[in-house]
């Protein structure tokens, strides 16, 4: 199948910083891609470029459209949640539903109302009277009722408590995602998305430093718990990272054979957050 997004040589220069530096990637349909990077790495700029919200140099094709020139058509096929609390504070639940229902050709009102019925939101309630968690419930209900091929989430659960965060991703998986849809999500709460992602992209200083699907990540990156006596041997294999736990060393390797590592100690699959920390070492230094 053809790609949902194809980017090549994407660059964006802000006055003081280079937000995107010759970035190229390709995203296939039916994937859930985590775009993960430290603050200021260029995540939001990349998403803005995809959504046609900012200018850039390079080639970018989103669902067959050029976001710079065909933004209006593109937005019929794409949804995004920028982050919590961008719904206008004056709007009522009923007005938000009415408005989107009438301007978005792919909006399914019954579906939206069914989602809302599972929340405590009342039709007459205004956004300014809601908690952050309720706002994101409303936003998610609106977005999930729109049948689009691409959903972009930029820090969608920032500042929510754990109940709302879990529920958010659960709803997304159970009631929204299917093989025809693609989701791109950026977040700092890596541990919450790591089990739903199919693809992982690390971005640092405007460059993609890792772009792989989760199976490949599991094969490429291996963590080994090594006793002190074998630690030097392990260090010679050039680990990405080393840390100490209970007198043992935990090494993180990139692309070293499983059979080799098994002889050093107990191996396991690294969590994305450990991988992230190891990859981004020295970012803020």
């Amino acid at each position, binding site marked *: 199948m053809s790609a949902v997004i194809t980017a090549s040589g994407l660059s964006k220069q802000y006055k003081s910083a280079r937000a995107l530096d010759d970035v190229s990637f390709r995203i296939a349909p039916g994937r859930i891609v985590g775009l993960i990077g430290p603050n200021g790495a260029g995540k939001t700029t990349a998403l803005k470029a995809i959504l046609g919200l900012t200018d850039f140099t390079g080639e970018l094709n989103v669902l067959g459209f050029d976001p710079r020139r065909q933004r209006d058509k593109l*937005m019929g096929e794409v949804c995004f949640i920028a982050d919590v609390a961008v719904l206008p*504070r004056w709007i009522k639940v009923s007005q938000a539903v009415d*408005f989107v229902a009438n*301007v*978005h050709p792919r909006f399914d009102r019954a579906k939206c109302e069914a989602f809302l019925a599972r929340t405590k939101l009342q039709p007459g309630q205004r956004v300014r009277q809601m908690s952050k968690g309720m706002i994101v419930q409303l936003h998610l209900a609106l977005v999930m009722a729109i049948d689009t091929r691409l959903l972009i989430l930029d820090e969608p659960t920032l500042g929510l408590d754990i109940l709302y965060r879990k529920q958010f991703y659960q709803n997304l998986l159970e009631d929204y995602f299917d093989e025809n849809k693609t989701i791109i999500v950026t977040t700092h709460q890596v541990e919450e998305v790591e089990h739903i992602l199919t693809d992982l992209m690390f971005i640092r200083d405007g460059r993609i430093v890792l772009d792989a699907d989760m199976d490949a990540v599991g094969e490429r990156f291996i963590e080994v718990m090594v006793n002190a006596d074998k630690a030097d041997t392990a260090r010679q294999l050039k680990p990405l990272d080393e840390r100490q736990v209970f007198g043992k060393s935990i090494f993180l390797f990139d692309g070293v054979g499983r059979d080799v590592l098994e002889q050093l100690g107990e191996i396991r699959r690294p969590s994305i957050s450990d991988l992230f920390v190891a990859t981004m070492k020295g970012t803020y230094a």
Partner: protein
Amino acid sequence: MNTPSLKNPALKNMLWLVKREFWEHRGGFFWAPVIAGGIFLLLNLMAIVTAEVIGAQHGIHISDGGDLRQIMSQMDAGDMSKVGMALDLAMYSTTGLLSVVLGFVVFFYCLGALYDDRRDRSILFWKSLPISDASTVLSKVISATVLAPLIAVAAGIAFGMLHLLMLTIVLSFHGVDVWHLLLLAHPLRVTVNLIGYIPLYVLWALPTVGWLMLCSAWARNKPFLWAVALPVATGLLVSWFGIMGLFDLSSGWFWENIVARGLFSAFPGTGSVFGVDHRQMAHQLAANPGLRFMDLADNYQLLGSANLWIGVLAGGGLLAAAIWFRRWRDDS
């Protein structure tokens, strides 16, 4: 609100965009004229009551001898038409007050229209919907120049009628026939004049609406300051260095035709002040005193002035720039 289903999607989108503006700005568009009209009516009522009370205390009983009726019966046709005119003026005065309120509402609405949602970042929600930036800006222009004036005029007419009724009822206590008086007034003509003025207002207000919306779409902060300070500072520079002398024009020309025209054209009635040749107007007024200033035929003479059409062109250009900034301003 039930709206008939519209076939044309662009038209339907526009309707809902304008509706959205009304939801958000119900206070300015609806309550401001209603409250102002109510207060105006109340003040009039209080003035009348006070006058009656003072009149009673000091023994000035106009009604006693039926003087007023007597006076009325002695009036000739010309005098009668003046009474009608005075009553029409009662209606116009309500709308006149509301149009000042409208001027302020439109001014500040335009300044915030493309700025407020950037500040609270809700622009990211609006921009997630398949609506072009041109439609968004156009819907705001329509809200400012058509929706707001329509509501203000409707309120003006309603309160004007109440005002008229109030005056006639008070006069009827003094022995004057209510219906006779009401027949002298021309509420229908007043209504038609007021509604008919709106299309002219749209055209005349365009440069101000365009300028304010451009500032609203462009300014990173304090759009009001930019919108006012920029033209005023330019005006000061022009005056100081006498730049207009190069074009054989006075600095006053710049202040009137650029600064004032750009900032105040959203106030209804300014078209009759800046737009028309003053000498000609004074001449007309001298020839035909009365309420000619509200006659549509007279007002629409403005259509023949270059001032109006140059303003329309300038307004269109400013709005195009506002749309461009709305599309590409990247700061949220």
